[in-house]
């Protein structure tokens, strides 16, 4: 039953994240990326706690979550820097305004 709840919420978060990425606001797109990353984090935390081979909470499952939070932070900081620059260039945070490059 636990598995259904945890996996179900992870897949729900994945869907929410993918939905957010298709929106027009740049900040919302960035939040969507973070939500997808967190769905993966959540699965890792759950699977680390039920790993049958060890009898303890698996440290590798938890350490990859910490590392992914760090790399996720790095991605977000690059993304925010790009959004700031895009705002300077285009005076908007609407991603659909960025249509200069097509084909």
């Amino acid at each position, binding site marked *: 039953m636990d598995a259904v709840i945890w996996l179900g919420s992870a897949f729900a978060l994945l869907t929410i994240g993918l939905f957010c990425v298709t929106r027009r606001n740049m900040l919302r797109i960035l939040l969507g990326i973070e939500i997808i990353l967190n769905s993966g984090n959540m*699965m890792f935390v759950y699977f680390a706690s039920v790993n049958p081979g060890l009898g303890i909470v698996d440290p590798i499952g938890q350490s990859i979550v910490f590392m992914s939070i760090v790399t996720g932070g790095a991605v977000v900081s690059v993304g925010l820097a790009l959004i700031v620059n895009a705002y300077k260039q285009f005076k908007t945070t609407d991603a659909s305004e960025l249509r200069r490059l097509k084909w």
Partner: protein
Amino acid sequence: MIPTALYYMFAPLLVVLVGVLAERMGSPKLRDGFAVLASAWGVASVWLVFNLVQASPDKILVVTLGGSPPLAACLEIDMMSVYVAFSAALLGFFANVYSYSYMEHDTRLTEYYTLLSALVIGMTGVAFAGDMFTLFIFWEMMGIASYALVSFRKETPGPIEAGFKYMVMGSVGSTILFFGAALLYGMTGTLNFAQMSSVLHGHAASPWFYLVLAILIVGFGVKSAIVPMHTWLPDAHPEAPSTISAMLSGMLIETALYALTRVTYVLFEPQMFSLVVAGLAAVTMCVANITALMQKDIKRMLAYSSIAQIGYMLVGLSTGSVFGVMALLLHVFNHSIMKGLAFLSAGSLVHSADTRNIDELKGIGRAMPITTITLFVALLGLGGVPGTGGYISKLLLFSSAIPVGYMWLAVLGVLNSAFSMGYYLMTMYKLISRPVEGVKGLHEAPMAMLLVTVVMAVLVIWTGVLPATVIEMAEAGAKALVENLGNYVGVIMR
């Protein structure tokens, strides 16, 4: 026990310290020179690692950090890893030498060289990774460095837009990959490739297998620009500085393809994904070649050509045989040199003429003959003309599809290859036809840029005329992946 050669690999990152000091001392050329030396050192350190791999039992070097494999992060380096890492380091060296002149008029060069080193080290790390944990960290390192480098010239709107698009698509791809890694971890209870392989190979295929496989193909496919996920590439490559286009097109997408090959071959049986990958290969090369024909922008045309080359490489991935993977690896090396050269020499032309439109570059070959000849060598190589490296690897790729029954794929590949000559020849014709007003009075590119392009052109011809050494290395890599999979798993499980 970590071999010293692996520490040496990270030496290029020291450019950040040297850069800050050199700027304080008011002699920024010191930093540029150091970056060139450091990247040459990077190539040498991969060579040292290669020697270590040769000396170790089964030709597989395992380096663990913090305990034994189920709990530790580990690097598992075999001939295939070294082969890909060497291609990356070599192209990184060429890009650094070229940057010495090419980036002269830009500012913030300390950041530029640091990010370029991080990009090369990230690729090397992806090639060396022995578990999902290590792979993911180096994957993000490579990704973040490339997002920042694509939008490096942030004063103009183009790079910002391309960089944002690339950042969104690339990080959605890698987060989905992370989700897939979580599922794999749930199925097997470990992140180590070898241990996952031994668990998965004992089980009958369940729907979860196919879900994970699909997630992995999508996750890696975004960075390697397989067709439904390719839309970032034609924007990002033209807008980036030419050295970065060369790095992205020449090696980043191939590193992603290497990771896909490694993970799918180690974890799954080839017949599970063979037909899907063959279909993706067919779609990728057809769509990319047809779109490339319609481009007016020379770098954009080359970017679409890269997607087409990824399609050819997927043919090798789909076969599931040593021959196919050998051809794939051979094309990875040849393409890294050829496409690197094409972007660098096109970069010289664009740098001088200040336009990327092919019609406005008409006749530039008469003003800059040597650069244009090197570009011709690269384009002929990409089209697969005999006498260049591209011919050998394409021949092997398409013939590898026949023994496994994908005759249609081989025929399609040859047709696509012939079709692609159309836009290469058109470009070549325009470059040497009657000069337009804008290109008159231009001079040959600076010495450092010229030297790099000439050396790379010689390499393209050398791999075409005397391919034995490269083929031998590629074959050793392919055997390490396909035939000696038992060793790869056994080294960890023992």
